[in-house]
């Protein structure tokens, strides 16, 4: 069964088309990332699928059910972390998650376990207003997952997290995905998408530009490899003469960069001439894919 089936989704705000004819199909148990510059329409797309915003056109089915009108049975099966944290005022961390748990008919013990999983045990009696940004975000994620939903939406879940919390959250998300839950997240971290997602969608100006596995996106980019050789090991002329090298760039700090479409040959050549010490090889990354698709200008 498909977890999400969206066809021709449209959302307009006045003159602006925030989401422009988007199709999205997500299989059960899949981990899908949505990437895109600020204002690309990621949040709007997710909110239409969650049933929070009514599309101006197109249709969505989630877990086999229609999203509109509001459907309590379906809502109990999905979990949502909104981009902006939203809490009951003046409650402590523990009271907060207990309240959300009760809304889904979940007991206190499993709710407390979630606080442990997101590392907020030390903060259980802190009021939500006194949490740091990252702690609030972790609480918001725990509240989204407290009822063990089949389908989880996370809107930039790691944007405020420190590296420790980010890695821990990756482990957490991987484990719920391994347990068969479908996860859809948006992120601006390419490494995150590469590490977690089965497939990623790159959005810009309301449209989905590509939707594929990170590996085939990088492959499809067909970017040359960049081999950096330590300073003083190779001079410019020698570098240009190496077989397979298309271009040579100078980098004052790092030395010489050999741009090639045939890294194996170049590396073999460097190995036979015993010049491999300190060599770094960079192939295309998801970030290159992203930038080549969306360009480098700021978005409004």
């Amino acid at each position: 069964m498909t977890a999400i089936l969206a066809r021709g989704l449209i959302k307009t705000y006045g003159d602006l088309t925030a989401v422009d004819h988007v199709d999205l199909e997500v299989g059960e148990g899949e981990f899908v990332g949505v990437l895109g510059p600020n204002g690309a329409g990621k949040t709007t797309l997710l909110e239409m699928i969650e049933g929070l915003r009514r599309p101006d056109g197109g249709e969505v089915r989630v877990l086999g059910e229609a999203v509109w009108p509001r459907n309590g049975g379906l809502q109990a099966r999905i979990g949502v972390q909104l981009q902006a944290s939203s809490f009951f005022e003046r409650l402590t961390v523990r009271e907060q998650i207990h309240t959300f748990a009760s809304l889904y008919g979940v007991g206190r013990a499993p709710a407390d376990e979630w606080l442990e999983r997101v590392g907020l045990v030390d903060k259980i009696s802190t009021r939500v207003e006194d949490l740091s940004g990252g702690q609030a975000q972790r609480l918001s994620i725990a509240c989204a997952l407290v009822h063990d939903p089949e389908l989880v939406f996370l809107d930039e879940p790691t944007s405020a997290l420190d590296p420790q919390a980010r890695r821990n959250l990756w482990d957490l998300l991987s484990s719920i995905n391994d347990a068969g839950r479908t996860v859809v997240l948006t992120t601006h971290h390419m490494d995150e998408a590469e590490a977690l997602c089965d497939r990623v969608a790159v959005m810009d100006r309301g449209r989905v530009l590509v939707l594929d596995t990170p590996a085939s996106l990088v492959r499809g980019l067909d970017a040359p490899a960049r081999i950096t050789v330590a300073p003083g090991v190779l001079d410019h002329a020698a570098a240009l003469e190496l077989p397979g090298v298309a271009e040579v760039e100078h980098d004052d700090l790092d030395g010489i960069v050999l741009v090639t479409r045939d890294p194996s040959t170049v590396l073999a050549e460097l190995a036979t001439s015993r010049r491999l010490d300190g060599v770094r090889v960079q192939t295309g990354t998801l970030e290159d894919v992203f930038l080549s698709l969306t360009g480098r200008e700021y978005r409004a």
Partner: protein
Amino acid sequence: MSYHRSAFWALSVAILRGFLRDKASVFFAVIFPLMFLVLFGGLFSSQDQSKVDLVQVGDVALVDELPDGAREAFEDTFEVTRSDDLAAAIEEVRKGDADVVLEQRGDELIAHYTQTEQVKAAITQGTLRALVDGTNVALSGEPPRFSLSSAAVEDDSLTTIQFVTPGLLGWAIAMSAAFGAAATLQGWRQSKLLRRLQLAPVGTGTVVAARIAVTLTIALVQLAVFVGLAAAAFGLQLTGSWWMSLPLVVVGTLCFMAVGLFAGAVAKTVEGAVNLANFLVLPMAFLSGSFFPLDGAPTWLQRFSDLLPLKHLNEGMLDVMVRGQGPGSAVVPLLILAAFAVVITALAAKLFRWDTT
């Protein structure tokens, strides 16, 4: 079903906790109106018990020869001291140490008093005039043809506290219901909690019911605290069908929650919503007789006040709590308040948006 009940309880507890931990809300809902009660009940009511200090200079036959019954009444009103020095006695009045100096020159009774104490001046003048008139009639030997007996419509014991408790309670309930609803609606919208709740499997009805349950609980606690304090400290005496104040408080609360929802639906920020609620409720409290009776107000103002829901809440509560009216007297105010609640809620619902945009 128990599932919805657990959601209802969880929401109610969350809202109540949020209220109790918000010191400003608790202050304005409970403490602030109680301060007014203590002010009106404690300070102003003591005034109508205090006697007029009267200094009698020389012999005043009219007073000295009062018959027993009349003397008793006279001494209820005046605290009499005697003096021989007229100038010194008048100086005492001027300084405010005494209220009136009484002397008799021949057949003329002369009272020296100060206009700064208007209430006491009026009492002095009225009582002494009655005394003189009564004596004149008695001396004429004819039985008086006309007599006036005045009786207050209210219970004899209708002192200041009897008047102010229902009115101030009405204001307190209106204020906390309106502020609570306005601040919750706007606050939850600003914090996006409304959107988060939209995603949970709870109906709008459950959310609204929880908010209403909490506000009603607060209102009933206000009623208990007000009546309890007024009775214990200032001698409030409830009349027979005071229990009809319970439905009045409930429907009044719903009505002012609707006012608050309206403010919350119209305004764009929490402060805006609270200010708008304040702007609606505070003048209404003045015009509805929460702080002082409207009896002396011009007729057009009294007619205008009939258009205000708080006026009907106050009147209904006065009727059943202190005026000794039967339970039936609350029916019309209840219906009027319910009608206001329905109309204002419909208006708020029309203006309501889930989102700030």
